[in-house]
């Protein structure tokens, strides 16, 4: 049902979160049949094949890195943080989209979240996987990464708990485990549905084991509701804390351009922007490919586009402050650094980030753009690319104009830098395609409850 052009955004009658005619059983049957019954479509095989090829690139890039060391990248002193750290911030930022949608908007009781939360959370799980790899491989001697753990050792050494880099390690650890846990717990009732609908033996075994024997008794539901609320209430501050701490990784250094008090919120806004963009990029094709038009409606796309616009405005404010503060402070190194950003070697990258993250998303003020899915997809793609560029500019653009002129340097990425970046995309896509095939991409039990509430007539 295409919405009428003069419809006012907001009221449920004009922009339903569930299209008319969709019943609880039709959603359950459709979503579980996608996993259990449907023949794997051609697009899945093509997409999965390409993803596997990219994953192969990642394996080769990491293999060569493990043989030769970080010298295969373009990094050197003083630019010792190159792509790896930029990639890390990029991936962990995109991961935030899933957590914000499923945790934050669960707490605000937003009814549009139910249909998109599973896609968003599944995205998060593999984004944090990609993110977690990056800081480890950027260690020159990555096999010593366990030194980050405060374990009793014969050297009587401790990790430096006062360092933001160690805070970050603890934060990633909590966030990775929290994301996987949150995703899995939210999946348990749906796994039980799959177990009960499965006809093949391997399916019954797989989903039976994963569902752990969920019965759906009133006792089970009571505990489940409570646990899910607690997890959501924990994940919402955790996602804000991890991006704040990622910001502190930089703010804790004295490098011009990093030593900014605004960095923690700056990074949270950037993370939210890229997170919403990735969710949009996944939701729009998936509602077509999986025939989910009934439960993922233009209203969902519209809400995500508005969130993207909001995040873009918040981030644009930070971009302004980033240029204003050095001049306000009058610190010479800061001014040199910011002038180098605006007109130096990396200026094209800097202006690309401004255009892609700050300027183009302003198109989303217009309803016609928010309704135009191909255009919206391009805007979101621009944001995802722009956010990678932003992290590149923050990492490299600051390091290349440090306090002392003797440490001015130009970083040129090598083919292995690009291979690592492309390969990590392969890891993400491979994981996501696998989840797409074996996990219901819509939370069936949440939609059953939502449809019951909507049809019972008690409105929102």
């Amino acid at each position, binding site marked *: 049902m295409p919405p009428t052009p003069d419809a006012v955004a907001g009221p449920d009658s004009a922009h339903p979160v569930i299209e008319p005619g969709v019943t609880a059983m039709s959603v359950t049957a459709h979503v579980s049949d996608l996993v259990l019954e449907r023949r794997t479509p051609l697009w899945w095989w093509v997409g999965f094949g390409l993803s596997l090829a990219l994953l192969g690139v990642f394996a080769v890039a990491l293999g060569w890195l493990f043989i030769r060391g970080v010298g295969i990248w373009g990094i050197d002193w003083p630019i010792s943080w190159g792509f790896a750290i930029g990639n890390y911030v990029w991936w962990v930022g995109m991961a935030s989209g899933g957590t914000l949608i499923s945790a934050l908007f669960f707490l605000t009781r937003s009814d549009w979240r139910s249909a998109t939360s599973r896609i968003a959370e599944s995205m998060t799980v593999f984004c944090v996987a990609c993110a977690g790899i990056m800081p480890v491989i950027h260690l020159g001697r990555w096999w010593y990464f366990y030194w980050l753990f405060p374990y009793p050792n014969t050297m009587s050494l401790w990790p430096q708990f006062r360092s933001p880099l160690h805070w970050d390690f603890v934060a990633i650890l909590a966030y990775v485990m929290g994301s996987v846990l949150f995703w899995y717990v939210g999946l348990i009732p749906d796994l039980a549905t799959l177990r009960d609908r499965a006809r093949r033996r391997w399916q019954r075994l797989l989903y039976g084991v994963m569902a752990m024997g969920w019965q759906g008794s*009133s006792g089970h539901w009571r505990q489940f509701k409570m646990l899910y609320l607690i997890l959501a209430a924990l994940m919402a501050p955790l996602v804000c804390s991890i991006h704040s701490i990622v910001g502190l990784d930089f703010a804790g250094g004295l490098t011009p351009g990093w030593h900014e008090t605004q960095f923690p919120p700056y990074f949270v806004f950037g993370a939210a922007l890229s997170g919403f963009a990735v969710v949009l990029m996944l939701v729009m094709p998936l509602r077509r490919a999986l025939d989910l038009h009934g439960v993922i409606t233009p209203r969902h796309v519209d809400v995500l586009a508005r969130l993207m616009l909001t995040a873009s405005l918040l981030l644009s404010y930070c971009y302004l402050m980033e240029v204003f503060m050095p001049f306000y402070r009058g610190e010479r190194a800061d001014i040199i650094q910011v002038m180098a950003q605006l007109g130096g070697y990396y200026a094209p990258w800097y202006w690309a980030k401004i255009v892609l993250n700050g300027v183009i998303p302003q198109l989303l003020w217009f309803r016609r753009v928010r309704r135009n899915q191909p255009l919206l997809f391009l805007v979101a793609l621009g944001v995802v690319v722009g956010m990678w560029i932003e992290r590149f500019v923050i990492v490299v653009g600051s390091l290349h104009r440090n306090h002392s002129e003797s440490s001015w340097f130009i970083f040129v990425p090598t083919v292995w830098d690009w291979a690592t970046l492309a390969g990590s995309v392969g890891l993400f896509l491979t994981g996501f395609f696998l989840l797409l095939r074996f996990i219901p991409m819509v939370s069936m039990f949440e939609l059953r409850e939502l449809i019951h509430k909507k049809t019972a007539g008690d409105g929102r």
Partner: protein
Amino acid sequence: MTARPASHRDHTGRGTGHALRGTVAAFDHPDAMLEALRRLRQAGFSRLEVYSPYAVEEVDELLGRKRAALPLVVAAAGVLGGIGGFFLQYWGMAVSYPLNIGGRPLNSWPAFSTSTFEISALCMLLAGLLAFCAACRLPRPYDPIFDVPGFEQASQDRFLIWIAAREGRDDRALLHTLLPEGQGVRIDEVPA
């Protein structure tokens, strides 16, 4: 809808070793189930359980269930995790390996606060999952309730009330008057 035949399964001596005897009533609509539940409670049935495809409000009140103790466990884990996490950092930085850097205090608690928060949150997440599994007695791959005919519908679109047979009483007639079989209601007796 595919109903898996459960009757030919062996009901005795599997899994937990005990078998179920009683009646299960299946409803198409949660309101009908709630209405039946009310009647059953008024008739004095106490060993009841509801199985539903999503959490139905009011069921807990009708069954007289207490609030979940999960938040208390999680809060305790948070406090313990916070204290433990802070102590770990304090011990490492101020006692076991003190490093005097420019005369700054060794117990630099503001620098320990973020990790304290993260460790505390992590403990709460894990304790929540463990407490949930303990309270729900999961993982539990097999339970006799799975052999009840039509049980697989409870995770899809049916609302089931399980009525355990009362010792030494034959409630068949009473149940038939309380739960009139017909539109949207199906009654199954489950032999031991």
